[in-house]
């Protein structure tokens, strides 16, 4: 297992990616029409309780390995903030885009 607690490199999802038994919540942060890199993306549960945070890659990609459930993802960036919801009922890839404005 990982002997650290920092997030692994954030990489883009691949359509049809096999996540095994992991519940993966992943996607891209956008600003205007383009991907926006470097935003801080927070994973929040249905009660807005914090569950995790990563910094999106320069291409705006982020991913979490969550428990099954309904999640909110919230992006913070010096240009502004944005959020989106995603229903990740079970193992698999659950994609979501967050628009920052």
């Amino acid at each position: 297992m990982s002997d650290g607690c920092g997030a692994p490199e954030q990489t883009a999802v691949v359509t049809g990616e096999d996540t095994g038994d992991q519940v993966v919540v992943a996607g891209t942060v956008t600003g205007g029409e383009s991907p926006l890199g470097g935003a801080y993306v927070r994973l929040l549960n249905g009660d807005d309780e914090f569950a995790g945070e990563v910094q999106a890659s320069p291409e705006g990609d982020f991913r979490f390995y969550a428990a099954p459930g309904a999640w909110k993802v919230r992006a913070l960036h010096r240009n502004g903030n944005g959020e989106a919801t995603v229903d990740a009922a079970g193992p698999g890839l659950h994609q979501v885009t967050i628009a920052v404005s």
Partner: protein
Amino acid sequence: MSREDVLVTTQWAEENLSTPGVVFAEVDEDTTAYEGGHIPGAVRIDWKTELQDQVRRDFVDKAGFEKLLSAKGIGNDDLVILYGGNNNWFAAYAYWYFKLYGHDKVKLIDGGRKKWELDGRDLVKEVPDRPATNYTASDQDLSLRAFRDEVVDAISTKNLVDVRSPDEFSGKLVAPAHLPQESAQRGGHIPSALNVPWAKTANEDGTFKTADELKELYEEAGLDTGKATIAYCRIGERSSHTWFALHELMGLKDVKNYDGSWTEYGSLVGVPVETGSNGGK
């Protein structure tokens, strides 16, 4: 102890980048963050390769810490300003570690690297060249550090604060949600532990909540401030963040960080483990 004694704002940091006797240090596990850009003049401390013994699971010893700080150009009289990513987890760990080895002139940038970036402040790639010093450390102050036997003895007698997320506490996950859930150890928590996730002590921008807000948070969670407290997480860095909140911001006297944390406890043979979300309330 006031907030100003242990924290500086990003604004103060920017105004003191060139102040003699002030050394900025970025502490991260992911060293690519520093390489991609850091606060002007900041040296880098690598949490994994420089603060951990590379053979045993333990810290570098006193001589190793002296060698490290000397090489970084940090002197005994310098005010060290620590910051890092992950909401200052690793910087808070380094802060606790500096205190453990007797370096009292140390503060955190409130909000760390995240706040600095959200403010839109400059990051640079230029690595500073600081002349080496002859740093001398004290022996470890073990009033700040808990080991496994003390933790087992603390069940139902001292405050145990599990600062991991609710899903890690209950046993649904064995690592934070930004990491793959690979593990051979048991999920769950130490019996009688309260679950007060570290994130509740911080604002969205990574700054710490006020002492009054923290007091309210822990009172509501059922922390008995008249008792000694041991904080733990998975590997001891998120619990350093909570140790900072309890000991440095709230001013509680007897607070230890259990750096062995769940990766040690959850692998011990024969110790009690609890699952579910109730905790010690």
